[in-house]
Structures are given as C-alpha cells and as structure tokens.
C-alpha cells in the first residue's frame, strides 16, 4: 500500500490502520455500526427546528457563501461556464451585499475558462476528475485526468472512489487510488466523492468516510449528483460524525460536502443545523462545509429577497440557470 501523504502525525491507532491491507480492513470493519433508526430520527428531529428572522438571514448568507456552484452536463459550453462564473462573482446583481459563492465546479476541460473568469476574485475553481461520475477507468487515466485539471488551474479536485472495489471489499485498492490522486493534486484541495447512493448501508458510508479521511481527502462528499438518492440528511449526519471523530483523534479539521438534491433554502438550513449540532459550530465555514448545487442558489436568493422585501419573490427575478 502507498503511504498517505498527509499523515506524518497520525496517532498510533490510525497509523496502524493504514499499515497494510489487512489492518485497514480490520480497522474499517471494527468501526462501530450505525444505528439506522437512531440516525434517521435524529436527522428528522433536527430538521424540525425553526430558524427565523435574523438567524435565517445569517443562515441564508452563510449557505450562499458555501455553495459550490456546479454545472456538470454533457451539454456544457464555455459560454455557460462564463455566465456561471458571473453569477458566482455576483449572485444577485441588484444587491452588492450578497456574499460570493465558495467555488465553481466544472468538468476538467472547462477549468481554463473558469480560471480566466474568476481570476483575483478569491472564488475557488473545483473540477471533477478521475473518470467522473462512474470512476470506471484505469488508475493511469484517472491520474492523467487529475493532472489535466490541476494544470489548467483547478484549486479543488472532486474525485470519485471506485465503488465496485469498495463494495467487493478491496479497501486497499480504493485507499491507494485516493492517495495517488491526492499526490497528483499537489496544492489543490481533494474532495473524495463516496457516492453514498450506491453504498447501500450507513455502515458502508461510515467506512468509506474513514477510508477517505485516512487516505488524505480534505473533504468527503456525498454524491456525484448523477445517482439517486443523492445527498440525504442521515447520510450527511454519518459523514459529519466521521469528521468530528477524526478531529477528536488527530486534531485536524476535514470538511463535508453534501451534493445533489438540495434545492430549497429550507433543506439547506436543515443541513446547517446538522453541521452545528453534529460536527460543531467550527464547521460552519466554507473551508469545512460546502453545498454542491446549482438550483439551490436561486432559491437562496429568492428567500433572501423575501426576507428583505417583506413579500414573496419569484423565479422571474433570478437567472434561469
């Protein structure tokens, strides 16, 4: 097994876990099981919190600043990426006080366009890589894909794990892949997409989360957005628990990014409540929590207008995409 690049200071228990294939398997299978009923109930319970007025405004602005504005379609054009970048810089053209989004997320061949548009704005350029969304290709191709995106100027790489290997229990292979992609990233942040919709159980989500963290992922991300179900609250809970426990054991803070299926402000606020309650208030920053979304931003902007103008807004007042 390749050595993880970011774990010179791992505590002995974790350093031992990544020593070889067998100990990695032992560690991941030794993780406590997830209480399915419990986590779903807790997620639903936290989802009923009512956030109003000033707190809601704060939540909306925080959520906007955490959005990874995403376009991952076969039909993407350079023009579409340019207009997306314009929206990222100034989400609501009529209101200058709306925060910028955290990043723009595109396919590797669109990175160059995005970099040109976002130079000097402080907005990150995220690129999916490693044969997104299926991850079905050789390691060589995946590394090339990553290098291509990084060379083009991507500051964040969203990689997919090999779910086939993970589900057949070849944890070592998945681990090695993440380590090598992380190496290929250089300075770029690495987000590891677990594609929880294909992992079947919460126990698997917990194992995959720890695998991603052990291998050096800066973020763990729920889904590609191409598989249903995408992000759900209980799954995000399990992942937030993993980064919280990781922090407790190593002192390092890693991030979580739910992606796909979060379309309304109400949903977004539920996620923020979960972040606050499960991981902790330190995670309520764009460095440690992101939303992978495209339509969510419009709803956030409409809700923001509703709060400020005192009446309901409509989709005629925001951009189409």
């Amino acid at each position, binding site marked *: 097994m390749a050595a993880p690049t970011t774990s010179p200071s791992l505590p002995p228990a974790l350093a031992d876990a990544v020593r070889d294939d067998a100990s990695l398997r032992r560690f991941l299978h030794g993780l406590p099981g997830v209480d399915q009923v419990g986590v779903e109930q807790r997620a639903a319970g936290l989802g009923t919190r009512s956030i109003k007025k000033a707190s809601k405004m704060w939540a909306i602005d925080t959520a906007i600043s955490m959005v990874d504005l995403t376009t991952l379609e076969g039909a993407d054009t350079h023009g579409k990426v340019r207009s997306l970048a314009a929206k990222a810089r100034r989400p609501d053209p009529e209101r200058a006080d709306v925060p910028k989004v955290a990043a723009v997320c595109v396919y590797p061949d669109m990175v160059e366009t995005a970099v040109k548009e976002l130079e000097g704005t402080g907005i990150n350029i995220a690129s999916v890589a490693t044969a997104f969304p299926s991850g079905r290709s050789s390691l060589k191709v995946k590394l090339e894909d990553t290098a291509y995106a990084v060379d083009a100027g991507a500051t964040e790489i969203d990689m997919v794990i090999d779910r086939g290997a993970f589900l057949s229990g070849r944890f070592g292979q998945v681990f090695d892949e993440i380590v090598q992609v992380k190496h290929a990233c250089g300075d770029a942040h690495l987000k590891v997409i677990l594609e929880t919709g294909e992992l079947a159980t919460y126990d698997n989500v917990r194992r995959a989360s720890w695998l991603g963290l052990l291998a050096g992922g800066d973020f763990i991300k729920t889904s590609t957005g191409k598989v249903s179900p995408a992000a759900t609250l209980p799954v995000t809970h399990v992942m937030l628990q993993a980064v919280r426990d990781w922090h407790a054991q190593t002192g390092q803070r890693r991030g979580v990014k739910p992606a796909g299926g979060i379309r309304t402000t109400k949903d977004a606020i539920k996620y923020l409540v979960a972040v606050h309650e499960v991981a902790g208030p330190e995670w309520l920053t764009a460095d440690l929590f992101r939303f992978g979304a495209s339509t969510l931003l419009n709803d956030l902007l409409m809700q923001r207008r509703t709060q400020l103008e*005192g*009446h*309901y*807004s*409509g*989709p*005629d*007042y925001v951009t189409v995409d």
Partner: protein
Amino acid sequence: MSDRISVAKTYKLYIGGAFPRSESGRSYPVVDAKGTFLANAAQGSRKDARDAVTVARKAFPGWSGATAYNRGQVLYRVAEVLEGRREQFIAEVAAAEGVAVKKAQSLVDTAIDRWVWYAGWTDKVATVLGGSNPVAGPYFSFSLPEPTGVVAVLAPQQSSLLGLISVVAPVIATGNTAVVVSSQDRPLPAVTLSEVLATSDLPGGVVNVLTGRTAEIAPWLASHADVNALDLTGAPESTRADLERSAAGTVKRVLRARPSEDFTREPDLARLRAFLETKTVWHPMGV
C-alpha cells in the same frame, strides 16, 4: 337507527391536486345562515398561499400549452362531474346562503350552465379577441390573446357557488392557473368544487382552493412577485385600495371589484378578457 350521530367533517385545502391540511394546523367552524354548525374548514395561512402559487406556476406551462380544444373538453368534463354532485351542491348552497331549496336549485343549475358557457369559449376567444390586423405593406400582422399566468382570485363572499364559478371558470378557460381564496363564511361549496375538480380531468395545480380569512391571505397574494394578476371581487371593501397598491409593486393585472355584482345575469367577456395579454406579431409574406 334514528339516534345515529352523523360524522362531522373537517375539510382541508386543495393545493396541487392534493388535499393538504393547512401548514398552520388551524381550522375554523363553518355555520349555516341560521348559525347551526355545518363543518370545520381549514384556515389557510400565508405559507399555504405561497405553496399554492408554486404549484400553480408549475402547472402553468402544461395548462396554457394545451390546445384550446383540449381545455374545452376538460372543462366540459368538469361540468359533467358538477352535474353528478348537483344534490350535494343544492343542499350546501341552501345551507350556506339561507335560501329556499327551489332558489338553491336554480342557483346551482345556473352555476353549472355558467361553467359550460365558459367551457365553450376556450376555442373561440382567440378569434373574437384576436385576429389579423390590416396593414399597408407586404406583410401579415396578427394579434393573439395569451394567458397572463398565475391569477390570484378572491372569490365573492356572498354568492358561494355561482359567484365562485363565475370568477374561476373564465380564469382557467383561457389557460391561466388560479389560486382561489374562497368565501370566508361560506366555504363549503368551494370545498366540494375542489373535490369535483380533483376527480375530473383537470391537471393538479391548475386550480388551488384556499379556505380561511380573506383579509389574512389576500395581502400575501397581492404582493407575491410570482403572481401575475389579481381578481379583487371578494376582497373586503376596506382592504381593496391597499391590495391594489401592493399589487402595483410587481405590476400585476388587477380586476377591480364591481359594486354589488349580480352573478345570475348573463355574463359578458370582461372576465375572460381581464386575464389575457395580447401578443401582436408581424410576419413577412411569402414570395
């Protein structure tokens, strides 16, 4: 078994083809003209109005895009189901408005006929209100009436069925979708109408019926940026000016309430025309 206790009903709202409870969880008792308890009706809130507007907006492309002929067929089908519920409507109108059964029968029959009358207009309104314009040049110019979008309808407070149908049918006949706030004290015929609409071919979301306090819900619909037009017929007198003013904030079409409108009279095209926009295009002639 004469000592049977009848089932007291608690009705719900009609939003997007479903019957949800009010988001607020409130309901209020509905009494007949003599003050006897009839049933509980849901007391809609501003968030119910918001949800109704969202689904009405979603239903708009499909309903306005349907052929006029198809819309007509759907509305005729609604008239058939109305006819099937005739007895229930007569009982409800008699109770709500405190009129004799004979009078209630005539009101219900007129209401059903009114629905059929508007159903017939779906595929005729374009030729009557639009057409080709005379021009002095080698091109065509023609005008088409098009539905304006989502219409918020404040139904008449007195005429619980005939008045309701007289304001709802013209809105949807031309391809608009509607969010209707029913008569506040006489909502039961509106609830039964929504049951009729749910069991006919009308797509969900084309008509949404909110029961509750008109003065509470109306301002939110008047100011809502995604509502395109507002029918003030059932608005309380004192609130009309304010509603019109806040409707102007997002440039809505507003149909003002006429003083003491008599719904038994034969209608004209005014209500059809009120929620149409005219699109005029020119087109070069072939060689």
